[in-house]
């Protein structure tokens, strides 16, 4: 029996499930620890304890983590970055990272360089790469003591080789640098792709340490299994891949909840409402995947354009404070958060929370019901009406269309929702294991590859262009960990380029396949001690630099 473990490391709790195929064998919630490894081990130990299985029966561990998102938001453990843009003589009018928040720029100690290179939309060079110029940049980077470099080139999704060639020159002049290439991170949109690449480069040292920590903790526990990491689009990547692209984890939290909701409910076209302690996330799924955000998404105050789930949030959750104001009763945005287990009336506390009101209104049976018997009926009515109005409004904005579709409720706070008050849905489902939908989402073993580029039709036919992109997307999915025999194209879109129909075509392809656990042997070639040595010291104290 192939057992896999899905772990979702949140800010407060670490949730974990043990699964065999589509069956859930056990689940657990434990407090998150400072080093992700020991929290993960606590969860795994508890799961094995519940089922009586041995570590040897586990075939893979799949982890979703918010630690890279938090590092960016809290601006800590970030590596210094040198950013090189290949574009001269073009693109001098907007400098690299010029609209970043100052504190983040400072936290990554950003040094920027413009150099010759870059391509036109049809693949022609803007100008050839200048080797000497890049060697000088490498020397400067080295003398600054910077080890992480982000390289961006104009139209690199069309001509990725330019960035690769520049990386070779820089790395041979300054060996030991860790290099992020923008075409491997984002799609068309130079500023946004460049931003995401710099953020990625700043996280590479933390990624090496963190994944080494997880791997050694699992090994020490006797789990010699492949480890996979959740990425933004709801698929997983091998830990080796994640080490190079930590930025791909930053939106995995909400995606995992939504994918988990789809899995648990068996619905692949639905709305999902994930009610937590402080906030409620809402999104729509089609084909089991979250809809993609139509707009540029800010990460830690920086504009990026990679594939992100379209998730809307409102500041209402199980721990939201209920207040009486001159304008009426308000729910949130202040919340007791995880302290709900001691502060809410139903749990013996003295604060009126949304959960208390929900219990008083008869929406759920939780804690000590008599503790809320004294709540004024009018307050209860107004509060419950108020948040259902908020929930209906945000559900409306999340819908793909006006057509009624099912709603899936997940998250610990989902008892707040009275299905009779939800408008325009065919049914409301709260599946079993709704409390750990995020960990279930993390345990879904699929890997993907995506291509989004413009191709010139001067040397290729449209069919050749499309088939070239299909092959590339499949290769990327396999590189991320998919079994080549199971990879399928799930999205294929060709768009004529405005003004240039017949001259150029934009092709977007996404391939997905099931992860093959056998192909990856975590420990082969990935010695944690090696990792630590390669990573160098993790420096949290910027002032020493």
């Amino acid at each position, binding site marked *: 029996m192939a057992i896999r473990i899905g772990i979702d490391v949140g800010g407060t709790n670490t949730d974990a499930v043990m699964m065999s195929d589509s069956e859930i064998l056990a689940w657990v919630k434990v407090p998150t620890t400072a080093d992700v490894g020991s929290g993960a081990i606590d969860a795994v130990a508890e799961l094995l304890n519940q089922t009586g299985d041995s570590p040897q029966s586990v075939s893979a561990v799949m982890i979703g983590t918010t630690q890279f998102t938090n590092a960016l938001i809290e601006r800590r453990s970030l590596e210094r970055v040198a950013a090189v843009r290949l574009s001269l003589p*073009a693109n001098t*009018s907007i400098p690299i990272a*010029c609209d970043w928040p100052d504190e983040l720029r400072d936290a990554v100690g950003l040094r920027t360089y413009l150099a010759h290179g870059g391509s036109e*939309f049809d693949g022609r060079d803007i100008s050839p790469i200048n080797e000497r110029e890049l060697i000088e940049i490498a020397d400067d980077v080295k003398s600054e003591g910077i080890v992480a470099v982000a390289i961006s080139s104009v139209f690199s999704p069309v001509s990725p080789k330019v960035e690769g060639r520049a990386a070779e020159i820089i790395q041979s002049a300054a060996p030991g640098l860790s290099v992020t290439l923008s075409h491997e991170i984002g799609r*068309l949109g*130079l500023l946004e792709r460049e931003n995401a690449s710099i953020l990625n480069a700043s996280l590479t040292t933390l990624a090496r340490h963190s994944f080494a920590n997880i791997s050694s903790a699992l090994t020490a526990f006797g789990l010699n299994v492949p480890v996979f990491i959740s990425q933004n689009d709801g698929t997983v990547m091998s830990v080796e891949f994640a080490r190079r692209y930590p930025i791909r984890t930053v939106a995995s939290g909400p995606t995992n909840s939504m994918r988990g909701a789809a899995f648990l409910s068996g619905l692949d076209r639905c709305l999902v409402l994930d009610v937590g302690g402080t906030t409620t996330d809402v999104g729509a799924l089609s084909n089991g995947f979250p809809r993609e955000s139509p707009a540029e998404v800010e990460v830690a105050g920086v504009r990026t354009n990679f594939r992100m789930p379209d998730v809307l949030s409102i500041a209402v959750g199980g721990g939201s404070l209920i207040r009486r104001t001159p304008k009426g009763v308000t729910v949130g945005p202040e919340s007791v958060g995880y302290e709900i287990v001691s502060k809410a009336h139903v749990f013996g506390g003295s604060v009126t929370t949304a959960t208390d009101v929900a219990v008083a209104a008869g929406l759920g049976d939780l804690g000590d019901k008599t503790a809320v018997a004294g709540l004024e009926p009018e307050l209860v009515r107004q509060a419950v009406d108020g948040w259902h109005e908020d929930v209906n409004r945000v559900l409306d904005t999340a819908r793909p269309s006006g057509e009624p579709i099912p709603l899936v409720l997940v998250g610990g706070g989902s008892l707040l929702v009275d299905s009779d008050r939800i408008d325009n849905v065919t049914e409301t489902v709260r599946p079993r294991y709704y409390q750990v939908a995020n960990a279930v989402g993390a345990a879904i073993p699929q890997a993907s590859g995506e291509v989004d580029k413009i191709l010139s039709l001067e040397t290729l036919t449209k069919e050749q262009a499309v088939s070239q992109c299909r092959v590339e997307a499949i290769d990327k999915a396999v590189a991320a960990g998919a079994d080549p025999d199971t990879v399928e194209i799930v999205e294929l879109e060709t768009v004529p*380029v405005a*003004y240039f129909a017949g*001259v150029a075509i934009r092709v977007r392809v996404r391939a997905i396949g099931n992860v093959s656990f056998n192909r990856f042997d975590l420990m082969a070639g990935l010695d944690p001690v090696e990792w630590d040595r390669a990573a160098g010291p993790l420096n949290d104290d910027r002032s020493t630099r």
Partner: protein
Amino acid sequence: MSYLDTTALRDIARGSSVLAGGGGGDPFRGTLSAVEMTRQYGPPRLTTLWDLPDDAVVACPFIIGAPLAFLEKFPFGDELAVAARELQRVLGAPIAALLPAEIGGINSTLPLALGARMNIPVIDADTMGRAYPEMDMTLLNVEGIPAAPTVVADEHGNSVVVHATNNVWTETLARTVSVKFGAAAAGIGYSATVARLRHAVIEGSLSHVRSIGQAMREAAGDPQRVIGAVSRLTDAVELFRGKIISLDREIIDGFVRGTFLLEGIGADTGSQMTIDIQNEYLVARLGGEVVASAPDIITVMDAASGLPLTTESLRYGYRLVVLGIACDERWRTETGLAVGGPARLGYDFPYVPLEDSPRTIARRSAGAP
């Protein structure tokens, strides 16, 4: 003559998004480059036609190419300066001031970037009073001012001068050249003397959008105050409040076409409005009857934030406040309507000025804004 600091530049970008009527493209990159040019070369100066001698030459800078290519290449720097210098050579006269072609989106902040870069003042005016998808949809065309000679340039210093017999040829030839310039090029044209332009432009438009943008900034966070301030400053009529219940829209590389349906909320409960999109919001219909159309401006504000929404950013379920803003009177003449009216945009209904629409009359007599 006054100088614009970076706060003023951002206010102009913000305020022009109201008059852009949902179009004008993403002002983000244009604003960043204007701010950067200001940092490097000092702030752009603002002037008026009345501060310039009659025989001084003025021209309109713009970007030309594919919206997709502008995502990768930013032709707001040296390319623009190359084009401006070449135009001066062709004309045999210095460009005394720059004139914004439109007041909405990228082409309203771009003259400020070039003005800072070349130390040329920018006229507090524009040639549309709104945004339109094509460069010939301008009051300069209504006044018979030719786009040619137009110069198109790239970042290498290459430039091509287009001498064409009419504005359609200028657009076709300039666009063809821009492909070889990487589909993202800088241009400048519509040069004329100050005397010729005096009655052809909309004066005070940069100051106007700056005050709108400033009011929006000061009221930020309170959607009702933002919408109230915008309505007051533009003398707008609130056409409708409603929720999007269907959205039929295609976005092909930056070009947006389609229609959406609003179901009334609040006082408008029980009625429905449809709005047509061709990059901008072009026609608003209430129960099938046209209540506002181009060249008048239809602008759509998000009821939750008070911010204007572009046609790309609409989504099902959004709650909107639809405002109508009267266009410049010159758009309402026979020649004005031929250049920017409903017939030019493919419609066969007769144009009715916003103020004469039954909806406006009903709203205003009811005391609504």
